[in-house]
């Protein structure tokens, strides 16, 4: 039976603690395979969203500032 792919992928360390995924990724994450890839892309997307949100906020505060 094929398992369904979950939307949110989290990575834990060997001692069971959540692994803080760096936004720039790492070879270790790629070596983890699809799970590492998916988790990294999620973090990257989240980061991009945050950056965009921050820029939007900044723009709204200072509409005359060039982005």
């Amino acid at each position, binding site marked *: 039976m094929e398992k369904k*792919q979950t939307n949110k992928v989290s990575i834990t360390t060997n001692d069971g603690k959540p692994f803080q995924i*760096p936004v720039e990724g790492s070879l270790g994450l*790629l070596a983890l395979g699809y799970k590492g890839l998916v988790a990294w892309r999620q973090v990257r997307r989240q980061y991009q969203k945050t950056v965009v949100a921050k820029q939007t906020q900044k723009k709204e505060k200072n509409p005359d500032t060039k982005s």
Partner: protein
Amino acid sequence: MGKRIAKKVLLIGWDAADWKIINPLMDAGHMPTLEKLVNGGVIGNFATLDPPLSPTLWTSIATGKRPYKHGIIGFTEPDPSGKGVRPVYITSRKVKAIWNIFNQHGMKSHVIGWWPSHPAEPINGTMVSNLYQRASKPINEPWPMLDGTVHPPEKAELFKKLRIHPAELTPAHILPFIPDAIKIDQEKDKRLGMLTKIIADCSTIHAAATYILENEEWDFLGVYYDAIDHFCHGFMKFHPPQMQMIPDDLYNLYKDVVISGYKYHDMMLERLLQLAGPDVTVMLVSDHGFHPDHLRPIELPKEPAAPALEHSPYGIVVMNGPGIKKDERIYGASILDVTPTILTMFGFPIGADMDGNVLVNAFEEAIVPDKIDSWDDVPGDTGEHPKDRQEDPYAAAEAMEQLIELGYIERPSENIEKAIKNTVNENNYYLSRMYINGRKYNEAIEILTKLFEENPTVTRYSMRLAHAYQSINKIQETRDVLSKIKTTSGKETISMKIMEGNLLLVENKPKEAMALFEKIEEEMPNITRVNMQLGKCYLALKKWKKAEDAFQNELQHDPGNAAAHHGLGVSLLRRKQYDAAVESFLNAVGLTYFFPFAHYHLGEALYMLGEYERSAEAFEVCLKMAPGINKARQLLTNIYNEHLKKPEIAQDHKAKIAEFIKGDIVIVSGLPRSGTSMMMQMLDTGGLEVFTDGVRKSDENNPKGYYEHELVKSLSRNKTWMKDAMGKVVKVISQLVFELPANYRYKIIFMDRELDEVIQSQHKMLIRDGKAKEDTINIRVVNAFKQNLERIHNWVPKQQNMEIIFVSHRNLINNPVEELKKVNDFLGGTLDTKAMATVVDKSLHREKAAK
């Protein structure tokens, strides 16, 4: 079905992985996962095939068959539509791959990235083709996936998302490979782009494989990573030690890439093993190695597939899992053995038409593999493409040409046509090499002759043709090709000179060959290595010490040269340095297990050391590989009878000797001046055909002729002419009887003359020829003759393929009719003995009369 040893098999392909790089990395703790796998399993060298072209090799791995059987013979092939050339497709494969066999048995297989595997086959499982990972456009442009990349097609979207574009990679991925990447001027130096592509591609394959391992059930999973090969082709020239032509700045930038590539593979391996679970049998293999040392070529010729010259002939094999031995080494493994071995692990018979063997020494239990004629004849749902989708692109190209000529289709543009023609030519050239590699020389010659006729200036075709002719000892044909090349090119290259030297060796002219090789070595000491050729010359000339030096020189340069270890062993064996010889032969078979003569000589050296058990083992292995080496069988018969006291096994071997007898030869032998020429003349008169070239003319010493053949004198080093002597009578002096090859049956008529008479007769002959003085008989020669006669009496009757009759010279002169009756009975009773008796001329026997 045999016993199933493996629950699941994970087959991991690392293109070009090489122990020469891996061993120091494992020793330094940089590949901990592989080290663990190695320590808990078996390892070995994995012999590749020639030419070492990855798509052909990986198909051999997946089928157990040589490329001329499976049909994948190059990187590209003509597009059957006639529109040009395309990457080689799986539809050109003519035989079943291992996953097709599993499919017939309802097993679940997954195949990721195998080369070639496009379009993906409709197997019971997932297949992700080899055209899956490559990104050809910038990241901001659409990256479509070719139809047929993923089976089942409904999973295409899922796998599409697992692809990694090189532009996604960040310094975090690149700096472990190139710590000073920031210094690279990417306008001028494109290597960074190349590196990111390699990392992205293999990470894509790895993402697909790990997805399947984590989410799907499976019996067999095959995953192929090409990145080590690509890291090596791109960056091995920067690998330490620094090559002379590499500038310091580039060396410092790129020296870590290859090592980092291997470390990254170890990390990926860790994940694969973790997901596969503990009960899995793992087989990690590479299709060939990659020279990491002084054997790295300095320059590559400008010809297609030239990078393959960087490949080394041995890849790696590691097996680990239930039923597999722990921490052991296996010998003689070849890439052809993967499919037969995995079939056996699952309890399936192997195909008798497979070229590989089961690696039985890897298993804890003794395995006797079952066999069927061919898996290709077994019907069932194989998961292959429907027959109408399977293509022969070469036939398609020919058919297209015919339609063009008939005017049904417009001729493609000149460039396309040229590209197709070049592809067909190159692939035919590879095919010829594949035939040579499989020792099918006539098939190779047929292809190469056509290529040479159509492309007389392409020397790789013509030199290969010369090589094929040389391999089957067609000396004149080889010389004709060399002469044509010389005429066409107006020059004689070093390779041509070396080939001429090899021909001289085949012609049994080792002195001339040696002179030529020594000249080549003197003229170009830094460019060409002729140690092997010189070593062979010295062996032929019995210059054992010089042979030893030549092979040692070669081994200093290339310690992985099995033939050099063997040559060294033979020179040591002949110098009675048996322990050292054994070590050399073990080195040779450790590198190339399928080396019958190395096992034979190992047996000989062990025999001399009195290690009869081990000696018998070596001869047994030799005979398994080359059952026709009757000399090994004779020695084995002797060992089992006299030393190991196993007469029943000795009897088995004795019975088998007859199976490999090529024909019968009558030998007339004896000491010189014992009446051998007279006996030859008698047999000639009596109706037998004699083997003589008439070169040695009759003279005062032998007025009725010598009946000799010049070739006999070289019997100790050249036995190839023996086939021409079948059914004939050959004169062989008693000292050379021991050199008679064991694959003929001999009836030996041995002339028995009083030793005093022989010595007197020889002495008078020497005096007549001005080569000796009266009363100067050499007593040491007399003793040597005595020993020789004793040896004949002891040795010949023990040989399974020899019968001997001793004919009294005195009786023959005094009572020829009676003595010749014995000879006639010995030879089957068909001789005209009356006519033979008339040959005796008592007046000629001066020495005896004088006595």
